[in-house]
């Protein structure tokens, strides 16, 4: 029997009154994945992560981490698991180091010697003696990662780890995630930042209003999106007529000096010959690939007003 996957959720439902925050979500994260859980704000990403960590009880369905259900097995289900939801939170009146000591005591006293090591990893050693109340948002995020690493996790659950960070902070956080993934830690990362997911993740689930609308490899998702071709020709009007007459070329539209159409590769190859025979000079013939952003907007129906702004950033 193969080992149970790091994350396996089946039919998870969470409702708040009449609002269905998470609606029958299935999710599997395999060992070594950097899994992007992608959705607009309010799509239920944080609620799902809370259920995975046992912080809230699902109304239906079950979540298992390495085969253990946090509702049934309690804290034991979190062995080898670490992370945070909605941003890491610490005691503001204790120093960064004291906060980690407290958490080490809550874990396993043997982890205490590792405190300096994890502070070093997140580059917080110089400020570790200061009270967390005086930390910047970025420093708290880094302390959150340090607190997670203290558990020597095999699975990291990170809820929007770069949200609220400045560009340099975002870059550092992503470098850190990439490095941890390189060390073999499985990572489930929620985000509404498409470029982040594209940069870091090998697999994604896209959710909308609590339901999964896509789950699979990021490459497969992008491959489905080769939607058509763009053609620039010396004589666009005549080129349009050639396209219209050509079998296998559909949805031909002239937009300014550019033609757009849908066709498979064979039809496009034949079309280029036909254009040459018609003595129409071709200056560009390129496949049009939808960006993850376009796919995302298509799948989520453009739910959130702020995601497209962020996605471009």
């Amino acid at each position, binding site marked *: 029997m193969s080992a149970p996957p790091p994350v396996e959720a089946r039919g998870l439902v969470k409702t708040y009154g009449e609002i269905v925050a998470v609606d029958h979500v299935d999710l599997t994260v395999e060992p070594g994945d950097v899994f992007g859980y992608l959705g607009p704000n309010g799509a239920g990403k944080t609620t799902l992560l809370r259920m995975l960590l046992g912080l809230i*009880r699902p109304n239906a369905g079950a979540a298992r981490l390495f085969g253990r259900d946090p509702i049934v097995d309690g*804290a034991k289900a979190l062995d080898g698991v670490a992370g945070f939801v*909605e941003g890491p939170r610490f005691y*503001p009146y204790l120093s960064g180091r004291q906060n980690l000591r*407290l*958490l080490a005591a*809550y874990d396993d006293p043997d982890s205490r010697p590792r405190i300096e090591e994890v502070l070093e990893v997140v580059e917080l050693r110089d400020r570790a003696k200061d009270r967390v109340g005086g930390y910047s948002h970025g420093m708290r995020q880094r302390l959150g990662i340090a607190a997670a690493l203290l*558990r020597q996790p095999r699975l990291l659950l990170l809820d929007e780890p770069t949200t609220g960070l400045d560009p340099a902070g975002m870059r550092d956080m992503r470098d850190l995630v990439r490095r941890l993934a390189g060390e073999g830690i499985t990572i489930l990362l929620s985000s509404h930042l498409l470029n982040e997911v594209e940069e870091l993740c090998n697999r994604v689930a896209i959710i909308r209003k609590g339901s999964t609308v896509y789950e699979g490899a990021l490459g497969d998702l992008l491959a489905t999106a080769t939607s058509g071709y763009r053609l620039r020709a010396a004589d666009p009007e005549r080129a349009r007529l050639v396209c219209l007459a050509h079998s296998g070329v559909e949805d031909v539209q002239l937009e300014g000096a550019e033609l757009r159409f849908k066709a498979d590769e064979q039809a496009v190859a034949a079309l280029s010959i036909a254009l040459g025979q018609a003595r129409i000079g071709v200056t560009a013939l390129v496949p049009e690939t939808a960006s993850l952003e376009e796919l995302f907007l298509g799948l989520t129906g453009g739910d959130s007003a702020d995601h497209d702004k962020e996605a471009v950033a």
Partner: protein
Amino acid sequence: MISAVARVYRWEIAKLLAQKRTYLGLGSAIVVPIIFVVVLVLQSGGPNDVPLGRYIRDTGLAVPFVVLFFMSIWGFPLITALVAGDIVASESHNGTLKTILTRSRERGEVFAGKVLASVSYTLAVVFAMGIVGVVAGSIAWGFHPLTSLSGTKVSAPHGLALLAASLAVYVFPLVGIAAFGLLLSTVTRNSAASVVGTLMWALLMQLLGVLPGTESFRAYLLGTQFEAWHGFLRTPADWAPVIRAIWVCALYIAAPLSAAYLVFLRRDVAGE
């Protein structure tokens, strides 16, 4: 399990020691007997109507007993509520509850640590008042034998032992108030509401004790148990009010604490 609770408890104490409200409560418990002694040194007359009030200038040992009476109405309940009402709610509010509940401790262990810390704080404030009261009173009037409620003289060392026993039995109803505070703290997730609600509940218990028509059940009200120590100061000692205080308070402690425990085990820990 026990070592896990001990670790949680140790850090609950560390957290209390790092928070201002702890010192506000502890400071009040220390300052009240000092103010009391200073005022009585500067003024003539005294609290002649309260138990041992007439003998307050005879010995420093009488001071904590008299202060116990005055602080039972709202002083100690407020000081207790300040911490017990906050101990879960502030963690909900700050989001640190989810931080500690995603580590390796079971919810029951975390809850037990918080209960023990609340009880320790209650013990600390009562005994701090007692010690400071004796010291301040002894500086003013000396450390002399104490006149008991039966009018007999009790040697100073014996009086000190009676004070320790009295403070210990006085802690029981206070822990009852702390248990109610913990329940509100767990259920409301709002520190201010829990502190005020706990104080209101303590005042209601006191009010019921003085209203006419409550005589039949007065002995079983939480507020009444603040007088149980009187039993120790009779000759011979009257154990009946002490024993009643212990079992009555046990009920007042067990009921809200069990409810709080069940809520804490099952509650959703989500953004506040």
